[in-house]
């Protein structure tokens, strides 16, 4: 077939775009967002996706067009003997530079909101990663960590009040882990020897996966937890229940699934 190769390369933008168009219909896309700040991140993602998508389509199409038009077999014109163009060079340096700088500045706000401007509120809970489990410690009625009334849980289940600002303290008991809540668009590496903060607000009740996103040893794959968002009253009741259970509870190792 004439122009076979140019068409082969045209498949790239064709299927590339098709993949992204059809993926949402097969329910493989950004997972359901149940957080307040996740919107910003998703919007930013989509903004960059559209932007790069356009650049992708345009450059790949230009590539296709050149391969098709300047195929040595069919192109009877003589070669354009050119070593380059200053004007073009300037154009395709300045436009991407401005665009990239724009993206950089445009999303600083979101970065600051997620990682720098910590709200000044007490810790809702402490998260400790260990091989291969998530432990949680709640401050108990006195609202302070590391006191007598703390509630400690080792079953990998984290209960949080919905629609309230959450502040977590994150530490590690052994190696690196990463505390990743896909449905809330938050992730923070868990570093031994460091105490870190993570804050977010859950908007939907229900249970969602906690994933470990940093290789932490052979059991990395099963270092799973669940976060549950409960209405305030149910949350309060839950904590009372956990606290009562606490005295009877021996350390449970989460079951293999």
């Amino acid at each position, binding site marked *: 077939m004439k122009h076979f190769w140019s068409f082969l390369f045209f498949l790239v933008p064709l299927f590339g775009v098709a993949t992204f168009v059809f993926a949402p219909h097969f329910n*493989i896309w950004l997972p359901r967002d149940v957080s307040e700040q996740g919107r910003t991140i998703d919007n930013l993602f989509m903004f960059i996706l559209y932007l790069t998508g356009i650049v992708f389509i345009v450059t790949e199409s230009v590539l296709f067009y050149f391969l098709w038009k*300047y195929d*040595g077999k069919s192109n009877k014109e003589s070669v354009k003997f050119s070593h380059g163009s200053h004007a073009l060079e300037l154009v*395709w340096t300045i436009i*991407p530079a401005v665009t990239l700088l724009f993206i950089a500045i445009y999303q600083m706000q979101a*970065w600051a909101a*997620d990682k720098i401007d910590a709200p000044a509120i007490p810790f809702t809970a402490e998260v400790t990663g260990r091989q291969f489990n998530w432990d949680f410690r709640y401050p108990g009625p006195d609202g302070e960590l590391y006191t007598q009334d703390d509630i400690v849980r080792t079953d990998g289940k984290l209960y949080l009040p919905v629609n309230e600002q959450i502040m977590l303290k994150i530490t590690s008991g*052994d190696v690196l882990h990463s505390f990743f809540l896909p449905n809330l668009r*938050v992730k923070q590496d868990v570093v*031994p020897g460091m105490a870190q903060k993570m804050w977010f607000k859950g908007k939907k009740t229900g249970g969602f996966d906690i994933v470990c996103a940093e290789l932490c040893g052979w059991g990395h794959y099963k270092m799973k937890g669940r976060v549950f968002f409960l209405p305030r009253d149910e949350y309060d009741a839950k904590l009372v229940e956990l606290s009562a259970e606490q005295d009877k509870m021996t350390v449970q190792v989460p079951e293999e699934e």
Partner: protein
Amino acid sequence: MSTVTADTHAAHGEHAPTSSFLKTYVFSLDHKIIGLQFLFSTLIWFSVGGLLAMGIRWQLAYPWRPMPLLGNLLAGPEGGQIAPENYTMLVTMHATVMIFFVIIPILAGAFGNFLIPLMIGADDMAVPVLNMLSYWFMWPAFFFIGSSFFVEGGAAQGGWTSYPPLSVIQQAAPGSLEGQTLWLLGVTFVGISSMMGSINYMTTIIQMRAPGMTMFRLPMTIWGMFITAVLQAFALPVLTAAGFMQLSDRMIGTGFFLPEGAMANNSPMETGGGQPLLWQHLFWFYSHPAVYIMILPAMGMVSDILSTFARKPLFGYKPMVYSISGIAGLGFIVWGHHMFVSGMNPMLGMTFMVSTMMIALPSAIKTFNWLGTLWGGKIQFTTPMLFAISFVSMFIIGGLSGIFMAATPVDIFIHDTYYIVAHFHYVLFCGTAMAVFGGIYYWFPKMFGRMMNDSWGKVHFSLTFILMNCVFYPMHILGMQGFPRRLADPYHYETFRNLLEVNQFISWCAFLLMASQSIFVVNFFYSMFFGPRAGRNPWKANGLEWQAPSPPGHGNFDFQPIIYRGPYEYGSPEVDEDYYPQTQPPKEKAIPNDQ
């Protein structure tokens, strides 16, 4: 310059015609033989790395199901079932082998050695003995990595990034026993080898160019190699030092990377006072520049191939040179973009984000210039050209997906997911490895004096190109779902259960991709012995290497090359033919050409 060349020429006379087989093919001082030694060694490791990837893909498609054929080889005597600790070993070793034993040594070691003297008109490297050593120092590295599969606990399991404390605390993972020590030693020896190479390349390119070969008449391949050598020279010592620090943490109980109160298996460690993040800073201070080490020579090779088969001058030679130099400079101040969610001070995230966005720029400039090169040419779709075009096409994807990661808030979500895996395979595999294939098809006639079969080359290309995209493109979608890398059984999580089918599709494409490489292997060896003989210049190319005999004899050139112009004068109105070799004296009344 010319005097230097003359002197070294005389000096090389001493080891001129060697007699014994051992001296000619094994302990050779000839850069071409050393280049081929690197080529064969790295191709062997390429297939090892590929097999390891098949293990990973099997597990993700059919978790815990015994792997047919390869299972026993990869996973040990458990009936071919890949245990979780073996899975982390597979990921670690696949990446380590591909990066430290394939891509870096094939670009610098194989192509660098073979091409640099030929393309600049020198008779050998500046220091041939150092060159030979740079190859032989790969052998301890091969030995350490190769044997690590067989020690107690298996090979290293801390990821190719080897983050402590996992990699330091011996109780933390089975592979943190000898496996990790061997890993550190292996990587150190690769480092020593690269260091010797890099000193040699810099010296050779600066000192040994033939008369008339100014810096701005160097082919882009040489520019790529040169900047790579500079990057190696400045970045490698940091990795080596960090490697020794990790070794001493492991062996003699220092605590550079272990914090106070470090625990392993619920028992406290003796050491403390260190910082796990320190390793990440040191590691990425090398390994970020290293990603350019893994792509700049490929970019250079692609530029040369594109210009040759578009029969047109390279568009924007100088901007290309400036942009790779820019990459080299900026390459040292962007390492932190690997650490956005590491716990590093988030204020630093902002600076690293801006510098990272800026380093995307030179890549964009290069892409547009490649397109400019194709514009108005007479494109010949030979096998090397197809690979070179596919580099451009795929690099666009790898470059654009990088912007998502540079955007820090987005990176919070996609960091350590398959989005990253998709991105770096697009750059490394669909990009660099494809350029390497193109380079092999292109320079094969010079290496062995025979042509590779072009039709089978095209079959190999088409299968590779299509399957590779089927393997890596869907990984973007996996990553968007938050699918983390390095998980032996991702279906453990509700969120990722629906991804099983996608993963099975990817895996089957990967198996076919691997199988289709046999076409290349057969073509390669068959052509080496039975391919049609190639003349000096089968592609009608301008580069200096094409003026030497195929294969070039000892000392490379059977005449003293004098260079009159740059390597990209295709379709010049000054001459009747559509190419104008660098060594061809200009016609009487020709206008002097300053490029």
